[in-house]
């Protein structure tokens, strides 16, 4: 059982700073997901928590104990690697028993040669065999117990790695993109498995991924990292509904949030002649603001005369239950699509199928009260700004 505190963690490799002044508090039993694109520093951060990499500055604190100088073993953590990192020369049973057998080692058992025998003797001791059996049956590994990792599929290997982590009963589980090497179906299956283990153990999980679906479905809180800087630390819900800045808005959601530049006159934002009611917290003068709308907060109709933004349907992606419709706004509206918007299309998500076809004229109507507003210069969410969007200033949850 451990509460994890990270205080002002920085890491540089030579001249490159991969983590900038990271702080966070994670309560016992939380499922924290570190989410970011590759190179965002998320794996490095996890390795610093594990003690596999040293931080250049800052403190890692477990409960009230500073563990910076402790080995991974002393920190009492379990680590699950993307590449599984099983011991190829040992059977599944021996792999799972390995940490427990090592627990029983006394000083002289580490002498080369003695260690080989000691691992075998301890590994086949009654209590360990019993524990291995119960963990294997929990992860449905019984029938593979005598196989070597080479004879297992990717999903089975990752199960063995989870079993090896679980059997230690550590105070914290650290998982580094454990599902990245698996196919989509297995990924969904193991996602459920990991969530189940989290509930079952009630331990703190820190999980690194670049997959927003994993983050949204598993986390109790998410930290989004970009170039080693925290973009937002909040619950999945909060991050989706109130992204702290335009990076988060574009990173989460598929397709991402539509961003457009809206003109503001007398505190009233307007988009292509369409007025948006500014939220109360928002104090706008004159100028521009970046306006964001999730695809599901837009509707599209073939009625060209209706209220809304005129445009032409360019792409239709039928996903079965949903349909994504890409609309190119009428250039006459002078709509300034945000620079990152792919193909300058407004994406709309609609349940079921559509009758529209590519090339049809259409009208897009936004659900105006669901709009997000970002500062056109800094990209920060104007509604939640100062509350929880400041990079580096991380509030704890709850």
């Amino acid at each position, binding site marked *: 059982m451990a509460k994890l505190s990270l205080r002002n963690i920085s890491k540089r490799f030579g001249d490159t700073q991969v983590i900038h002044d990271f702080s966070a508090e994670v309560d016992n039993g939380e499922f924290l997901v570190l989410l970011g694109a590759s190179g965002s520093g998320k794996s490095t951060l996890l390795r610093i928590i594990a003690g596999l990499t040293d931080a250049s500055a800052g403190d890692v604190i477990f409960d009230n104990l500073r563990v910076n100088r402790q080995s*991974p073993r002393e920190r009492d953590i379990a680590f699950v690697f993307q590449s599984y990192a099983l011991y190829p020369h040992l059977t599944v049973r021996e792999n799972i028993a390995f940490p427990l057998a090592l627990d029983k080692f006394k000083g002289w058992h580490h002498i080369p040669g003695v260690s080989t025998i000691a691992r075998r003797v301890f590994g086949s001791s009654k209590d360990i065999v019993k524990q291995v059996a119960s963990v294997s049956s929990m992860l449905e590994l019984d029938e593979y117990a005598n196989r070597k990792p080479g004879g297992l599929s990717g999903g089975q290997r990752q199960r063995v790695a989870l079993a090896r982590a679980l059997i230690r009963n550590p105070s914290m589980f650290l998982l580094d993109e454990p599902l990245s090497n698996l196919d989509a179906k297995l990924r969904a299956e193991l996602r459920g498995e990991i969530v189940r283990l989290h509930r079952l153990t009630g331990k703190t999980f820190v999980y690194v991924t670049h997959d927003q679906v994993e983050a949204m479905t598993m986390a109790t809180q998410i930290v989004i990292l970009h170039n080693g800087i925290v973009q937002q630390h909040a619950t999945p819900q909060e991050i989706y509904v109130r992204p702290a800045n335009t990076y988060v808005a574009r990173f989460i959601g598929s397709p991402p949030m539509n961003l457009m530049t809206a003109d503001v006159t007398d505190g009233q934002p307007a988009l292509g002649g369409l007025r948006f009611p500014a939220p109360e917290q928002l104090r706008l003068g004159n100028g521009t603001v970046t306006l964001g709308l999730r695809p599901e907060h837009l509707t599209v109709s073939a009625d060209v005369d209706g209220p809304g933004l005129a445009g032409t349907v360019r792409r239709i992606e039928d996903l079965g239950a949903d349909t994504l419709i890409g609309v190119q706004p009428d250039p006459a509206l002078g709509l300034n699509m945000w620079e990152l918007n792919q193909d300058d299309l407004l994406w709309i998500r609609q349940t079921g199928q559509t009758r529209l076809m590519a090339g049809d004229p259409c009208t897009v109507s936004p659900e105006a009260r669901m709009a997000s507003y970002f500062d056109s210069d800094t990209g920060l969410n104007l509604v939640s700004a100062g509350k929880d969007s400041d990079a580096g200033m991380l509030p704890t949850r709850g």
Partner: protein
Amino acid sequence: MTTQEAPPITQSAPHKRRLKAPGNRSFSKPARYVMLAALVLFSGFPLYWMLNTALSEDSELYGQAQGWWPHWERLADFGDLIGSVPIFKWLTNSVVIAGGTTLLSLIFAVLAGYALSRFKFYGKGAAGFLLFATQMLPEALLVVPIYALFASLGLLNGMGGLILANVAFTMPVSVWIIKGAIDAIPYEIEEAAAVDGCPRVTILSLVLTPLILPSIAAAAVINFFDGWNEFLLAKTFIAERDLWPASVGLASFIGQYLTSLNSVMAAALLFTLPALIFFLLVQRRIVSGLTAGSVKG
């Protein structure tokens, strides 16, 4: 345009199917056997001739032409040879020297190979290169300085000193073989072991060593044969007849005025056998090790 023939459907498991590139038909079965037989004959004939010579009469060897078939009845005379010189003593010495060389060299090589593979330290490149550089110097060049050194250290005329000198010559190659093997092991496995509670020495003995066993076996073969065949240092350093390894003992058969060819060959046969047995023992490991399960994919 040529039409491509669909590959025939086979019932065998994929890993047992032979890879055949279209248009590059491999040799037919009989041709393959003929070539293999030629190769076996080529490398095996000297061994056979050694046996044949050992079992020939002196008169045959120095007078009329040597027969093609060995005189098996002369096998009994091997006993005379064994009685006349301490050949078993020499062979035992050889086993001790070659075995000691192998063991010591491998211990050093695993430690040094690990350091060169996993640690960053000042002068790492230079250390690696220097190890190689020692291989550029011929043994004969170093015999005299080592002799002087050993004389002052009291290491002459003993197997310990000889082992030490042998290790100096065989270890560098082993270090590079083992460094290469460790380079190929994913670092995550070591980290997993560290998380599981292994100090570095235990990571090395419990996890890494079993994984690089095929390379260790390969290095062991090289070291053992180096130690087994080594002649120059042994001849120079060891004067006492009872401490000779078999290589030196064998050479002593070649007299200034008279060389009994069949005795030399008989002793040479005995000299070959232990090395052969060692190779057969280790070779199995090399093959089985190569097929052990990998980490990924």
